[in-house]
């Protein structure tokens, strides 16, 4: 799929932008802090209805506009082509004052002019984004990796977002009950209801994550092998907090670099096992007043040649692994949805040697639409630049350097 037209109002440092987008590689050139990354963020926002950065959704509303106690609205409108159909997607971010000093961010999504619930609009338009700060996915805390996987799954599995939010709701209810039982005592049998709900929703999430990690690993492994000249084998190890696989005798923790195959597990098996485990943990969980297992505590580790990259990876290794992961996401999304996602790559060339650069560019040219940022256009071969559209990004404005395109 690809964007035909994009219009942005009050998003980050863009006051107003209205631009036609060609179906090919677009080079965004400009100094730092001019809006290159914000442009990628805006496009990604249309796919995920959230920023790729954690907890910044309200900051994307242009802060000059959002000053004072008046209402502030950021608006993104994309017209895009997906297969044979053309759609219009509009995301409005409304920062409205509540009470005396608070502000609340409300999101509205319109698909072809019709208002839709946010979780139904996610996945209609697909994009994969790479920015250098995303090395946090590998080095950062486990929630970074869960968020990464959740955002990718949300775009691919239509029911994922809703299930995830329902799981969160069930989890809050169960934790509230555990706390009540801890503080005031009461009928422990009530837990059964929430165990049931939690494991029903949780098992769906676990199963989707098992499959996603496995499929992503298949693509990432191949790409990484190529990117490292065959010197590194990349693995993604999913470590579910509730592991539906029976532990070996004596509960010896599994070695991280031992591949574990969970692909044959059935949904019912996971759910039954999950419920049983919650049952076993009941006394402990009441004592602690909180749910101790489940997707909210899952972990995904990335390993190169058996070494945990989060703990031992060098900067270069991590960047390369991240790129492999992102390219895998592109392939995975393409396989799952039948369409190329729009590719958004920020400063991706700097870390690569000449050979890798031309390999990557050759791959990107196969896709439908790519937005690439660079501070220096000379990083690209003249032949590549000729094929691409070059846009100058300066202080929140975008100029097409090759207007005939």
């Amino acid at each position, binding site marked *: 799929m690809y964007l035909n037209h994009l219009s942005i109002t009050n998003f980050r440092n863009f006051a107003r932008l209205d631009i036609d987008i060609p179906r090919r590689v677009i080079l965004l050139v400009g100094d730092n802090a001019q809006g290159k990354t914000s442009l990628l963020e805006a496009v990604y926002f249309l796919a995920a209805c959230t920023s790729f950065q954690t907890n910044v959704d309200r900051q994307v509303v242009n802060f000059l506009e959002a000053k004072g106690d008046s209402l502030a609205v950021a608006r993104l409108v994309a017209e895009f082509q997906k297969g044979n159909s053309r759609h219009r997607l509009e995301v409005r971010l409304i920062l409205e004052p509540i009470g005396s000093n608070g502000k609340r961010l409300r999101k509205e999504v319109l698909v072809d002019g019709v208002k839709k*619930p946010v979780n*139904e609009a996610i996945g209609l338009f697909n994009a994969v984004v790479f920015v250098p700060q995303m090395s946090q996915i590998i080095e950062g805390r486990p929630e970074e990796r869960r968020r990464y996987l959740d955002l990718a799954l949300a775009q691919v599995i*239509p*029911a994922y977002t*809703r299930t995830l939010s*329902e799981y969160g*709701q*069930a989890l*809050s*209810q*169960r934790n*509230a*009950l555990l706390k*009540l039982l801890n503080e005031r005592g*009461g*009928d422990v*049998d*009530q837990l*059964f*209801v*929430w165990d*049931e*709900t939690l494991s029903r929703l949780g098992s769906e999430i676990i199963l989707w994550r098992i499959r996603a990690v496995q499929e992503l690993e298949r693509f990432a492994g191949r790409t990484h092998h190529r990117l490292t000249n065959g010197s590194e084998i990349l693995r993604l190890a999913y470590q579910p907090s509730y592991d539906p696989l029976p532990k070996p005798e004596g509960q010896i923790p599994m070695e991280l670099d031992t591949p574990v195959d969970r692909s044959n597990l059935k949904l019912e098996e996971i759910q039954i096992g999950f419920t049983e485990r919650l049952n076993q943990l009941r006394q402990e969980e009441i004592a602690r007043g909180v749910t101790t297992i489940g997707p909210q505590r899952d972990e995904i580790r990335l390993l190169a040649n058996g070494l945990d990259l989060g703990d031992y990876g060098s900067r270069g290794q991590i960047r390369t692994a991240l790129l492999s992961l992102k390219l895998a996401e592109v392939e995975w999304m393409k396989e799952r949805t039948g369409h190329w996602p729009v590719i958004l790559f920020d400063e991706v060339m700097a870390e690569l040697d000449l050979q890798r650069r031309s390999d990557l560019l050759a791959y990107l040219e196969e896709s439908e639409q790519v937005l690439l940022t660079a501070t220096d256009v000379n990083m690209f071969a003249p032949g590549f630049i000729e094929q691409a559209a070059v846009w100058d990004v300066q202080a929140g404005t975008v100029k097409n350097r090759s207007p005939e395109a």
Partner: protein
Amino acid sequence: MMLLPDPLQKLINALERLPGIGPKSASRLAFFLLRAPEDAAADLADALTDLKEKIAFCQECFNITEAGRERCEVCESPQRDAGILCVVEEALDVLALERTGGYFGKYHVLHGVISPIEGIGPDDLKIKPLIERVERGEVNEVILATNPSMEGDATALYLHQQLERLGVNVTRLARGLPVGGDLEYADQSTLLRALAGRQAMN
């Protein structure tokens, strides 16, 4: 900052506690009543007092009824099938089911759903009286008609567990597509549920 006279502020505060009323609507309503003819305010006040004095809850099913009556119309009616109980969250749900004209059993109103976040457990609802009713043995079938929300489902699940051991037949309202609805416009989860709950044609 100008302070409102105490009686006005008290009214605004009271109105604000109503569901769906924010601070703005509350002050608008309060000022409307201030300016309205005297009998408008008096009528409202009377209606509110009557509400508490003249309305009572049926001792059998906990539906609303007029004060002085121990049991509501439905519970006293000999035409209604005492063998079927429909369990609902609120009295308003009884009204909705009555409007269908297609239900001839009796009711049981829970007055809420289980929600630990709000501190509502089974003991805060009319669940014990329900179990006592079923234990008396007249009932063959209990229809769980709580809302298809997470808390409604959880309450149904809990009731099922409690009632199952009494040997009564427990059913849950079907969920699926609205009549006269359009498949195209149904939301995903409704459609998924409808698909899962499909029935053989006969």
